[in-house]
């Protein structure tokens, strides 16, 4: 950009001036479209706005068509029963009863977290929390879904340390308990980690606010942190290209977060809402002022006038284009009726928040922006915020897909005796993905706010909403890149199925879904096929289960390899976050037992399903075949049994079977509180027609392990029968582990594994790599 201001008059006077549209990430036809929309060339400021708002990251131009078809088209009226705000707003809102509403969302911050792991992850948390605040809610919990490269790769510690400290550093400083998440290591995420951050907020029904600029003459007030040079171009550059050495000089620049500023911003916004001072509040996410002004104006009933000279700057040398693109964190924009500006100022002053009246809602439907007294933007805001190009990208099943699916785990050597089974279990417990994640989760505050009824390593996080009644919510997030790589459609369904099962295992009724879709380049037909398949599977599963998708996020270009190969991109990773409702959080069920002599039941039936399994990965570094089959009717029946067993106070512990199957579920249930377990497999093997190895390590879905008192065995059997879920008593829980009475994980006729040994192996993995 030149130092001279490029005004609308200049644009008219110099129609043929060369513009850096390519450097800003626009394609030739997109630039020509902007010229057609405006009837002239854009000014520098307008070009900046269109380029960020039309980036993949902001506009969803490659996925929009499919989002509308899949999530829009498949949400039935019945599914909308509890839906108060759906897809398209900052975050979806659902009614959970008692006059309470819950808003929740997950967003990716993948590329910034590779460039600068601490700040990338921290600002990922900050951004999603501001989305929740903008809805009028008090944030009550955060969560994080993390995918890193190989645990022993030399670059992995840099990313792990930064990301974990960043998620913790920001969330802890906001006073938000971190209650749910995943940490996965896989070489496919080398150079392209996934950092998905989620937030849940709670409000009364009447407190829901939408970000619309309505009411002629209403003031537009920007408040929070000052605007600096951070993240300029971040939205379009970081989200639109891969990091190629020696490539074009689209240098990514990362934003720096200040959680203290955000904490006082939260309290200030809540007080502004409570005092009825604001009509609406919008956050500043990607694309900064460009996004906030164009989205607010596009959602309103008029136009908007903004004086850029009124923006409070941290760096006075910023050009108007840079001010519009800056992604400085911890900023918000409010729409305020003129006679309430004074009241707004008093509340902002109380919290020592800086603010500036930038402009107002005007007639005419245009977004008008002046700088130094000259007009630099005159656009229809809808063309910026809502009418970006929509692409129907070609997609095609990759050539390698058939070969991958044909490479089944059947030929892999399986352990043949008890010692081999025990070694296989220990190997998974000591693997990067089967081990305890306490080294990560212990860096997060799970107690703050005093409402956490369950958190990691339980199957779902459970938070009390209403202190008087105990009404609460549960949240679980899941997604398997390995399963999705084998079959993206099934992978999308499996993400939903597992999160659904986890919420129900905790005792909550699944209520609504948010998703975060992490895929490769939409310009690669194979990656695009994975996206369409994964999204379709996810949407179909939600439709069958009758739970609405309330919002989501799509992160594309997660691709670092040469295009067109089996390993070009990350494992396609659709993450489903499922919100559940529990009438009384006192009924929430942990994932492990804390008493000896309880009866252990396996709910569900097992098949030989080892494609994409933890065992195949750990024992043979194998990924091939098909993922476990999905049976959503069985998932629903299983969920009903688990929820009713929790509500009736029968279930002492419920743990879903997922990666590592029964063997790992049994070990995790025992390790949760340090009580052993003894099971036998003969009846199970006879019923399912399988050998002990398959019963222990198969990853068949719709199964769970439940611990009940002997006196409640009949009640559990009755529940299972009523819902048509196979239930078999397979053993009992054992003693608490102590030096005098060492506990064991025992499988009769196969092996006895000292719990202390399992614990050591399970706990040492992450500290041995990262706590040196």
């Amino acid at each position, binding site marked *: 950009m030149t130092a001279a201001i490029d005004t609308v008059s200049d644009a008219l006077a110099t129609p043929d001036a060369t513009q850096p549209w390519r450097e800003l990430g626009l394609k030739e036809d997109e630039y020509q479209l902007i010229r057609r929309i405006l009837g002239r060339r854009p000014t520098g400021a307008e070009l900046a706005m269109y380029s960020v708002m039309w980036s993949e990251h902001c506009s969803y131009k490659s996925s929009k068509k499919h989002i509308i078809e899949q999530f829009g088209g498949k949400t039935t009226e019945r599914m909308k029963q509890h839906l108060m705000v759906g897809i398209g707003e900052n975050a979806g809102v659902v009614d959970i009863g008692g006059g309470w509403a819950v808003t929740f969302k997950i967003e990716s911050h993948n590329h910034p977290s590779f460039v600068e792991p601490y700040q990338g992850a921290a600002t990922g948390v900050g951004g999603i929390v501001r989305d929740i605040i903008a809805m009028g809610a008090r944030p009550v919990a955060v969560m994080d879904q993390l995918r890193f490269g190989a645990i022993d790769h030399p670059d992995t510690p840099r990313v792990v340390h930064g990301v974990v400290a960043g998620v913790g550093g920001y969330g802890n400083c906001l006073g938000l308990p971190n209650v749910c998440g995943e940490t996965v290591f896989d070489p496919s995420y080398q150079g392209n980690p996934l950092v998905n951050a989620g937030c849940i907020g709670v409000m009364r029904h009447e407190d829901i606010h939408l970000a619309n600029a309505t009411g002629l003459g209403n003031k537009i007030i920007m408040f929070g942190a000052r605007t600096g040079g951070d993240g300029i171009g971040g939205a379009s550059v970081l989200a639109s290209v891969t990091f190629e050495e020696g490539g074009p000089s689209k240098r990514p620049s990362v934003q720096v977060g200040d*959680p*203290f500023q955000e904490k006082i911003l939260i309290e200030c916004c809540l007080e502004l809402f409570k005092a009825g001072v604001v009509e609406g509040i919008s956050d500043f996410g990607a694309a900064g002022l460009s996004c906030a002004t164009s989205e607010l104006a596009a959602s309103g009933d008029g136009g908007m006038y903004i004086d850029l000279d009124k923006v409070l700057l941290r760096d006075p040398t910023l050009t108007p284009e840079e001010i519009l693109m800056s992604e400085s964190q911890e900023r918000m924009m409010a729409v305020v009726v003129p006679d309430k500006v004074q009241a707004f100022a008093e509340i902002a002053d109380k919290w020592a928040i800086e603010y500036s009246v930038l402009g107002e809602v005007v007639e005419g439907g245009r977004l008008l922006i002046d700088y130094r007294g000259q007009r630099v933007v005159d656009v229809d805001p809808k063309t910026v915020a809502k009418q970006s190009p929509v692409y129907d990208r070609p997609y095609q099943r990759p050539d390698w897909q058939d070969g991958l699916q044909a490479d089944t785990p059947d030929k892999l050597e399986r352990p043949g005796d008890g010692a081999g089974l025990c070694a296989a279990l220990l190997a998974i417990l000591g693997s990067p993905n089967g081990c305890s994640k306490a080294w990560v989760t212990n*860096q997060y505050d799970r107690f703050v706010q005093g409402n956490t*009824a369950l958190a990691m390593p339980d199957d779902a996080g459970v938070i009390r909403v209403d202190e008087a009644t105990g009404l609460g919510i549960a949240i679980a997030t899941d997604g398997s890149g390995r399963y999705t790589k084998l079959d993206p459609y099934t992978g999308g369904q499996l993400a939903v199925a597992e999160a659904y099962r986890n919420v129900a295992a905790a005792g909550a009724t699944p209520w609504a879904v948010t998703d975060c879709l992490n895929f490769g380049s939409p310009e690669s037909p194979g990656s695009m096929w994975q996206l369409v398949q994964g999204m379709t599977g996810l949407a179909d599963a939600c439709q069958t289960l009758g739970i609405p998708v309330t919002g989501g996020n799509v992160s594309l270009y997660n691709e670092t390899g040469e295009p067109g190969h089996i390993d070009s991109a990350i494992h396609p990773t659709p993450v489903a976050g499922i919100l559940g409702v529990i009438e009384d959080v006192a009924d929430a069920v942990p994932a492990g037992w804390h008493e000896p002599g309880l009866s252990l039941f396996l709910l569900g039936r097992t098949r030989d399903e080892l494609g994409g399994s933890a065992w195949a990965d750990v024992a043979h570094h194998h990924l091939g075949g098909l993922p476990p089959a999905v049976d959503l009717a069985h998932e629903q029946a299983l969920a009903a049994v688990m929820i009713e067993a929790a509500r009736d106070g029968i279930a002492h512990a419920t743990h879903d079977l997922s990666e590592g199957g029964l063997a790992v579920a049994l070990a995790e249930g025992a390790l949760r509180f340090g009580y052993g377990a003894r099971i036998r497999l003969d009846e199970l093997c006879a019923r399912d027609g399988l050998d002990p190895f398959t019963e222990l390590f198969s990853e068949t879905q719709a199964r769970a392990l439940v611990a009940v008192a002997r006196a409640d065995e009949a009640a559990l059997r009755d529940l299972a029968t009523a819902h048509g879920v196979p239930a078999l008593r397979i053993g009992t829980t054992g003693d608490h582990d102590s030096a005098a009475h060492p506990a064991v994980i025992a499988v009769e006729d196969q092996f006895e594994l000292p719990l202390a040994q399992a614990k050591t192996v399970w706990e040492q993995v992450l500290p041995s790599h990262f706590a040196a």
Partner: protein
Amino acid sequence: MIRIGVVTFPGTLDDRDALRAIRLAGAEGVALWHGDPSLHGVDAVMLPGGFSYGDYLRAGAIARFAPVMAAVIDQAKVGMPVLGVCNGFQVLTESHLLPGAMIKNNHRTFICREQQLSVENTATAWTGAFKPGERITIPLKNQDGQFVASERTLDQLEAEGRVVFRYQGWNPNGSRRDIAGVTNEAGNVVGLMPHPEHAVEKGFGPDSEAGPRTGIDGLRFFTSVIAQLTKEGALK
């Protein structure tokens, strides 16, 4: 009813939890604002945890100069019970109401865990309901929790019985002599890193032998001070 004030600084996080704990213990919690120099007639004050002023400069260093702190310091010096938890403890050391200082954990990461403590002094305003030497479990969560002081100060604290809590099982931050909490000479001002307000309600506290999340050892910090203030009130 006994009234216990809870101060909110910009960046305070556990103020609402502290007010809930005080209510559950049977007293009235009174929200106090950092910028308001009045204590509004409360009988005791709690400085809760969080990151006041974003821990800028040093944890607690800026909060110590808040208008409300002048009143807290004055009242503490004439015997008002004051409890500082985590960041509140840091504010108390910065205010010189308590000796020592907190530096970054020796392992340099934030840590959240259910921490076992021994109660070493039951004569303070906030520990009368405990038995000497009793083991209790209180959640701990901090980044800058390593208690340090000169050897002379540490010896003096030990000699005068002013170490109130010691970490048991494992020292989570490298604190000198496993010290988790200390008191002033008069025993009315107590500071500690673990969070008693997070162990006051069954279902939401640390695990205990009675089952997951059943630990409520933190409640007795508040019943202790309520009992002492009630007794003093009766004597007056």
